[in-house]
């Protein structure tokens, strides 16, 4: 039987020099490998865009239908906390970008520092999110969870609503705030889930980075994680104005 060289004009590969240990057998060059995994990461982010796309579609429809309820619901959120979270997340995106730069320029301690900072900022974000969620829980603004319309029917009895100068909503519209909070929890919840996954991976990366895994020329993993982290940041960049900043004047 003929062997697999049946293609007569296959070109004999140049006897290759020692491969870097991270080059997997089926790639021809490290560049091809890096390219491929980078592109794969981008495709994965496309699926994430569409995943959140469904939520944004729902948001747009109901915001058009139940605008007063969305305004009143939005006024229950705290801009200082939301704004602080935006700052934390944007800064963590910056430290992550710096981390990638450190890895590219082979600065091990810089990379570890950046990753730890990102880790802490991410945890801070989740901490504040927890505070916000707890507040919603205490005020019975979690859909279906003894959901209370009090803040919307009697805004004077409610600190946030009074501060925003809300007028009482009619009962039928007040009920629609549940749709707002459904979307609020679905959107921020899905976002927080992505944050938790990201932070878990970050923790793993910090250990590997201290062992010098990413500063030996193979930075794909850090780069790809960076893409993921920035994507999560972008989602928040949209969530913040859409959920927190409806008609604040």
């Amino acid at each position, binding site marked *: 039987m003929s062997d697999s060289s049946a293609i007569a004009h296959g070109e004999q590969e140049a006897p290759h020099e020692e491969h870097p240990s991270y080059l997997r057998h089926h790639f021809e060059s490290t560049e091809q490998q890096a390219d491929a995994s980078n592109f794969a990461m981008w495709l994965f982010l496309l699926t994430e865009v569409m995943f959140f796309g469904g939520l944004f579609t729902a948001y747009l429809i109901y915001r058009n239908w139940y605008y007063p309820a969305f305004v009143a619901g939005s006024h229950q959120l705290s801009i200082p906390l939301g704004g602080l979270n935006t700052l934390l997340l944007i800064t963590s995106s910056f430290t992550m970008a710096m981390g990638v730069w450190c890895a590219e320029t082979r600065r091990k301690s810089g990379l570890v520092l950046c990753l730890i900072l990102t880790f802490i900022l991410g945890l801070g974000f989740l901490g504040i999110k927890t505070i916000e969620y707890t507040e919603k829980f205490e005020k019975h603004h979690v859909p279906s969870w003894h959901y209370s319309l009090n803040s919307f029917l009697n805004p004077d009895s409610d600190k946030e609503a009074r501060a925003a100068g809300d007028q009482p909503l*009619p009962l*039928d519209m007040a*009920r629609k705030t549940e749709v707002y909070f459904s979307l609020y929890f679905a959107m921020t919840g899905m976002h927080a889930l992505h944050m938790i996954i990201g932070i878990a991976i970050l923790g793993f990366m910090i250990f590997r980075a201290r062992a010098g895994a990413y500063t030996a020329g193979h930075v794909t993993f850090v780069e790809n994680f960076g893409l993921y982290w920035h994507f999560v940041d972008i989602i928040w960049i949209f969530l913040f104005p859409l959920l927190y900043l409806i008609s604040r004047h």
Partner: protein
Amino acid sequence: MSHISPIIWQFLVKWMTNFALFPPEASRLAPQMDALLFFLILVSLIGLTIVVLLVTSFSILYSKQRHPVAEQIEGSTLLEATWTIIPLGLFLVMFVWGALIYFRVYTPPANAMNIYVVGKQWMWKAEHPGGQHEINSLHVPTGRAIQLTLISQDVFHSFSIPAFRVKREAIPGRYTTVWFEATVPGTYHLFCTQYCGTNHSQMIGDIVVLTPEDYRKWLAGSTSGASLAQNGERLFASLSCAACHNTRPDARGPSLANVYGAKLALSSGGTVTADDAYLREAILNPSQHITQGYAPIMPTYQGQVSEEGIIALVEYIKNLNSDYRIQQTTNTVDLLPESEGKTAGQAPAAKVPAAQGGVKQ
């Protein structure tokens, strides 16, 4: 297509119906739908025949025995353009033709007699304007445009009458409409075609098409005493709607007389036509439907009135519209049981314009 040869057409449809290959045609719309269906079947058959003929003849002509060496052909832009443009043209014809029929099925004529249908797991409840209730059956007269206003109490259902070629989804929380005009007396299938849970396949019933005389008898025999609008009036009073919706100059709510079908200016800006769907929404979600010049003080009745109750209210409000009342009365006068004596003679004459009203052949 029916104009090509009515005789062949009749033969075709009768024959196929007889052999249970095709449902009976029992509405004015059915032949129009069937014309398009036969066109589609014809195009499909021709297309399929072309493909099968070509494949078979090529297989015979160019089998390896007869044609040992293949001739390499790159392709042919002209041929490919042909089988891009011809199907596209045919599909566009189908699109236009189909869209015309679609409009016809879902655009009831103005003078149609309205019957309300509520779907719930697992039955159909029909409410006639005269107050007759039916479950899992629907009695309709021939020669009269009937509009169904459908709503579901729980999940999606679908009201399907194959013999009339009509079907419409009953949606929770929203009215949908469909109309038909039955032509042949008889009993036809009513199916729920949208899967709706355990007893989906038992959510079936009969559409009983009666001649106007029989229908009159049926109406007289199954009346419940009060018409739908009268039920609505009673409900209107018991919910104290008239406390605000009255004609006094200091009324807190707009008067509902002649509101049905009117263009209303809303306080949120914009205008809206007050149709059935609007009236229902205004009862359940009033704050989004405040008429200009009134304060948003109306409470919601969500959870306090059943779908049947809302239907009665809507019918009552519709009947406050003098045009609507007059039109419905003149339209259905020959069908009212008590009018048997005086209109029996002129009924056929009155029927013709009504029958011609909706559908242009």
